[in-house]
Structure formats: C-alpha cells, structure tokens
C-alpha cells in the first residue's frame, strides 16, 4: 500500500520532468544498445568543474538553445539487396518517431547521424550516399522516384573504423511532428570503386567483399534532436 501511496506524487514529479510514467527498465533494452559517447561527454561536462559557468539551457556542442538532447532511434527496415531504382544499391528505410517530443518543446536541432559499419577486406573504398525524403507512400508498381525528394548526395570514403555522415534535418523533422506527415527517409548506398561482381555482397546469399562487422548493423542511423522546454528553462539561472 505504501508503494501505491507513493505512485501518485511520483506521477506528479515525473510529469514535471516531462515523463508520462516510469520508463521501461534499461535492462530490457535491445541487445547492442548503448549510450552514444557524445552524450556521455555532454553529461560529464555538465557535472564538471566549469559547469557553473555554462547555461543549462544551451547545448554548446551544437550551438543551439535546448535542455533536452535525444538520440532518437531509427525504426526503419533494411531493404537488403536490389533497390527498386538502382540495381547495385543497398537501400535502407529510415524512420524517426518525432512524436516522442512533447508539444510544448521547441525543436532547435535535428541532426541525422549515419554510421557505416564495414570492415574492409581489400583497399580503401568509397560509397556513394544518397538520402531522400519520402514525400508520400508509393503504390506497388508506381515510379519510386516520384514519391521522394533528394536531400543529400555525396561520396564517403570508408576507413578502417566506422565512418559517419551528419546531415541537418531540423526543418524536415519539425514537419514530422505533425500527425500523418512522417513518411521517413530512404538511404541508397552504391560502392563507387568496385567491379560489378564485387557489388554482389549487397545481394543476399553471395560472398562478401565488403564484410559487415558481425555484431553490428551495416548502417546505423540516429537522429540527434535538441529541444527546449520553455517551462523548464527560465532565464537568468545559473547551473550548479
């Protein structure tokens, strides 16, 4: 009964922290999940000796106002093998649920971070990376190009460590907060300096010149969302 008694004020307190209830235990998270090192760095800095001098409602790492930094997980699926528009491409859908932000929050920054986890079997390689905004759901058999808009096209040199690309999607992510407006993104990857037969690794069931690191997904994407809750960020206060 003491637990029940404690639940009501706990709900009030969690509500003031911007939470509808207790989040699920961290132990039940998907395997392989981790706290991004950038978040750890920001957390440690906020606890550091010079923390008093910094404004808790400004995220200096990104140079924007905000008191909440989320690593929004990608919920899109990997469409392994042949892309509908590019036979040699690897295609990945990206979807970030922006409804996790409360309506009161002001979105300051949404930065897409894509990390490629490949080990190289031979020499340096480059990938052509194309990122599309999916504007609407396309019907089967319809032209796949019609329902999407190119956001980014660049080549990425693969290194011996995971390689990352960052894209500012703040305006787009703001639109995703409205119900029914989020069709996600489409990522197309094409190896640039490989022979056609070497492109086969992207097709299931073939040998792997670009060997994926076994425990990691080939492509990992997170949306770093920085937002400001104006009710929790009054001006003129200094942090501890």
């Amino acid at each position: 009964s003491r637990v029940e008694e404690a639940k009501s004020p706990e709900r009030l307190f969690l509500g003031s922290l911007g939470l509808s209830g207790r989040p699920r235990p961290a132990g039940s998270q998907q395997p392989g999940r981790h706290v991004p090192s950038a978040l750890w760095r920001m957390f440690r800095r906020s606890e550091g000796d010079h923390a008093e001098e910094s404004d808790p409602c400004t995220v200096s790492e990104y140079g924007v106002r905000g008191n909440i930094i989320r690593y929004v997980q990608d919920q899109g699926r990997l469409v392994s093998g042949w892309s509908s528009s590019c036979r040699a491409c690897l295609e990945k859908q990206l979807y970030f649920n922006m409804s996790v932000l409360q309506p009161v929050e002001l979105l300051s920054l949404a930065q897409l971070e894509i990390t490629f986890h490949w080990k190289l079997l031979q020499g340096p390689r480059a990938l052509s990376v194309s990122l599309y905004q999916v504007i609407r759901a396309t019907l089967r058999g319809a032209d796949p190009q019609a329902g999407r808009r190119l956001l980014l096209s660049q080549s990425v040199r693969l290194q011996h460590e995971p390689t990352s690309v960052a894209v500012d999607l703040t305006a787009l992510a703001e639109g995703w907060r409205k119900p029914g407006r989020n069709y996600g993104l489409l990522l197309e990857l094409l190896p640039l300096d490989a022979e056609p037969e070497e492109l086969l690794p992207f097709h299931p069931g073939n040998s792997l010149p670009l060997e994926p690191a076994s425990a990691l997904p080939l492509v990992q994407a997170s949306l770093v969302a920085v937002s400001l809750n104006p009710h929790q960020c009054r001006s003129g206060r200094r942090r501890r």
Partner: protein
Amino acid sequence: RSAVHLPVTPSNVCKARRLYIDFKDVGWQDWIIAPQGYMANYCHGECPFPLSESLNGTNHAILQTLVHSLDPHGTPQPCCVPIHLSPISMLYYDNNDNVVLRHYQDMVVDECGCR
C-alpha cells in the same frame, strides 16, 4: 505586549542540510543511466526573532518574526525554504528506447532563507 524571546540554538536555525538522494531508494535505478544519485539537500530550522542577515529574510519575514514574538500562538514563524536551487543533468532511456540527456532546473538546494 512585550516580545517573547524563545531560545534558538545555532543548530536549530534555518539552513541547508545534506540529503543524498539515491535513485535506488525511489526505485528509479533501472531507467536512469546516470547519475545513480545526487546531493539534493533540504532546508530545515527555525526563523527566530530577530532575523539575522544570514537568514536571508524578506521584509515580510522580518515583520512576521516580530509579530510571532508578540503572539507566538496566533502567528507562526516564517518558513525555512530554498531560496537558491541549481539544476542537474540526467541521462536515461525513455519508453521508445531513445537515450535522453536532460537538464533539470531546481534540483539541488544551495541556499535556504526565511520567507
């Protein structure tokens, strides 16, 4: 009426006291990644007449202590409350498996006063 002076030992005077909140004690250790707890502190003590400057009393509190000294049963002493708080940061998983770093204001009592 003459003022009633109640003896107040220094240890009873309003000031910040140490309170460490361990998130394990409130059952939040499973979703808060860091910190595991923090020094939250609290205010406790009396606001006696006459209010010294160290008690950070408002003009209202000074007058209230005066009235209290004249009529201890009819008028209470001012309250010993936080007058300066500072924020902390918390790192946690939300219900969508996102990792969140959030700064929360007014989590640590730095200074107390009579109000």
